């Protein structure tokens, strides 16, 4: 194999692809490597950890066809150290691959690629939708932190995607809070739903291009296809709980606050929160205020009162402040609407003017 690639292109490609190689499991060394394929249809980089897989095309000159597997960590470190503009040549001889730049030359030991698994790319049939990659990228990166990190319940460690009536709804919950975000689709006919493991979604979000992509899915896997790259992920094969049941239908009080106020108040309150990270929220419709209260026996206590438009009846509820502050990464809206349905029932936070997002937090026991 003999190929030459632009340094910058190569660097970006390696950076993206190396995320898909196996970083922990070293039983099969070829899984923690990147496969470089030089063929008549160009240069391709591949990696998989058997949960997700990527196939990425990159522009370059192929002088001699061939296939080689290189440890991802080594390749990533080398690619990360490139500084100057220019191109780099990769030449494969024996079990060594030689990388030659303008100033230096390095030889890396390769790994036998016979064991490199085939990545199960979809066969074109099945459900497919077309969306701008940037939307999915944002969707995945803001919503994945709300999914559970424990593997005990695989369905909660996944993002639930349902496509219906021209809208794509993504839901993530760890049973303490729940985030639901909707994005509009251009083609309306498709229906379907799937569960993608949150960990995989986070990796895919990093690798998605901004331009339009095709998402296709079947029972066991889904793929994200753009002209330059194909990403594949295993799907969680479980039933997602019917989350709509826990969303309160009615509310007894609503407060509208400025995001800026709420954010600073919460930040200051956090200093005083106890080991349970408890923050108490008080709705006061008479004074038109929303106040936050936290107490830590070792540090002290603090009350923050912020102006709000409160309609409904007075109410006290306690929450984990970490769950409350998640809302700031979920929506860019300037004002937030906070609605409560009563003691012991969840709180709903939405951004004013951002109908696409709904965030629900369960209260702590008082």
């Amino acid at each position: 194999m003999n190929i030459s690639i632009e340094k910058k292109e190569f660097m970006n490609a390696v950076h993206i692809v190396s995320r898909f190689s196996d970083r922990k499991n070293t039983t099969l060394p070829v899984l923690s490597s990147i496969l470089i394929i030089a063929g008549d249809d160009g240069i391709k980089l591949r990696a998989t950890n058997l949960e997700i897989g990527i196939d990425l095309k990159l522009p370059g000159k192929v002088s001699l066809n061939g296939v080689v597997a290189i440890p991802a960590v080594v390749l990533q470190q080398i690619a990360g150290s490139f500084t100057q503009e220019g191109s780099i040549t990769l030449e494969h001889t024996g079990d060594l691959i030689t990388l030659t730049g303008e100033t230096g030359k390095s030889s890396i030991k390769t790994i036998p690629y016979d064991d490199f698994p085939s990545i199960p790319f979809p066969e074109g049939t099945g459900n497919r939708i077309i969306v701008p990659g940037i939307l999915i990228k944002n969707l995945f990166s803001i919503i994945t932190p709300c999914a559970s990190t424990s593997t005990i319940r695989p369905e909660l460690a996944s993002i639930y995607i349902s496509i219906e009536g021209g809208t794509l709804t993504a839901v993530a919950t760890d049973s303490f809070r729940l985030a639901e975000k909707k994005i509009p689709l251009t083609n309306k006919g498709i229906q379907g739903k799937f569960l993608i493991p949150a960990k995989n979604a986070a990796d895919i979000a990093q690798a998605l291009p901004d331009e339009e992509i095709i998402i296709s899915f079947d029972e066991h896997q889904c793929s994200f296809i753009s002209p330059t790259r194909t990403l594949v992920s295993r799907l969680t094969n479980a039933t997602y709980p019917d989350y709509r049941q826990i969303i309160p239908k009615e509310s007894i009080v609503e407060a509208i606050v400025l995001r800026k106020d709420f954010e600073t108040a919460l930040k200051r309150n956090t200093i005083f929160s106890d080991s349970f990270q408890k923050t108490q929220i008080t709705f006061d419709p008479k004074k038109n205020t929303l106040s936050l209260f936290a107490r830590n026996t070792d540090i002290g206590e603090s009350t923050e009162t912020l102006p709000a438009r409160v309609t409904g009846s007075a109410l006290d509820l306690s929450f984990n402040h970490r769950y409350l502050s998640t809302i700031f990464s979920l929506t860019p809206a300037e004002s937030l609407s906070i609605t409560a349905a009563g003691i012991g029932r969840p709180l709903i936070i939405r951004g004013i003017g951002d109908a696409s997002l709904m965030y629900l937090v369960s209260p702590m026991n008082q």
Partner: protein
Amino acid sequence: MDAKNPKELWEQVLTQVELSISPANFNTWFRNSFVVKIDDNIIYVGVPSQFFKDWYLKKFHSLLLKIVRDISYEFRNIEYVIVKDDGHRKVSREPKSRSGAIELPLDEFYINKSDNLNPRYTFDTFIVGSFNNLAYVASQAALVRPGITYNPLFIYGDTGRGKTHLIQAIGNQFKKQYPGRKAFYLTSEKFAVDYTDSVQAGTANRFKDKYRQYDLLIMDDVHFLSKKDKTQEELFHLFNALHDTNKQIIFSSDRPPVAIPDIAERLKSRLASGMAVDIGEPDPESRMAIVRKKAASHGVFLSDDVIEYVSTTLSGSIRELEGMVNSIICQAQVKGSVPDIAEVRQSLRSFTRPQKVVSIKNIVEKVAEFYGIDEESIYEKTRRREVVRPRQIIMYLLREDFNISYPTIGTKLGGRDHTTVIHSCEKIKREVIVDTSLSKDIQSIRSLLV
């Protein structure tokens, strides 16, 4: 071997696969695989994801097919299915609940967190006999005027005599009589661990306060404190603090306060300063009462001869007695009828203590070592005084403790006549009554042999 059993079949296949591919490959691809079902001679193999399915089809299909065909020609094909994430790990069959009558009484293990007392131990279930009457009366007296009559109350006796039952019963009764006051039960070992933990965490003061707040402190098995100097000191201070404020303290131990080894004098004298009562060995009548009550509490009424048999066959502790009763009750529940004497005799065979098995050679060795003589000389014909005496003692022990016949003893100890053995045994038997040093020697040898 049943080739149709999916699990066994797959295990057989895997052992073959393991031989033909690299360990790394085997671990990656086959560790989580299993056979879902065998249907119409097609084997369905469960795999975690599409990645696996594709790779199985591409790489391993022909290998697997060859292996299963080797096992049986009947198998037509192998198919790969992607399994659910939550399905297969659960054990599908729950243990079937047996008939309602013998549901395990979990509440017996219930222990109150705030005072550590087990509510199962009450005076209602405590059998009073001549052996523990004094201890019972003392504890009743202590309950009438806690902290004043007998403080501390020190109860001692061998293991399994009901010390823990008695002192926990005091605690439970105390709670009932004086609802506002705090009682606390703990073992001395727990106390020691608590203390070391608090020292480690730097919260020794909190530790002190914690124990000083109780109105009744019950400490079980206090003899385990021996050699733990710092803990003893802490207990000493705690004792003084509680005693000065007239808070009742109750201890239990397997021996009287003065006999606890390696415990500071000042603590020893304090332990003995109140009332020290012992619980002796239960007499047969009490044992019978215990057996009857224990069985009745489980709703099983045993006939008198069974009760008598159970309580007299073994001279073990009350705890062992309870064990025997439990085993009878269990049998009664399984069979649905109360067992008669013959069945009980049969089932309790396992409870009889195993005969001590000690070889003659072993005894000779121990005795020779005890007297500091050469082991060989025992077997020789020598009549030296320092050898004759140990040889006679060996004969005596073999006869008395192990019931070995006179002729056997004779032949084993260097081919002596059985009359010689008889003479020796008789001689030692006579002397051991008058000669205290000899009886002491024999006692120590016996303890060596156990």
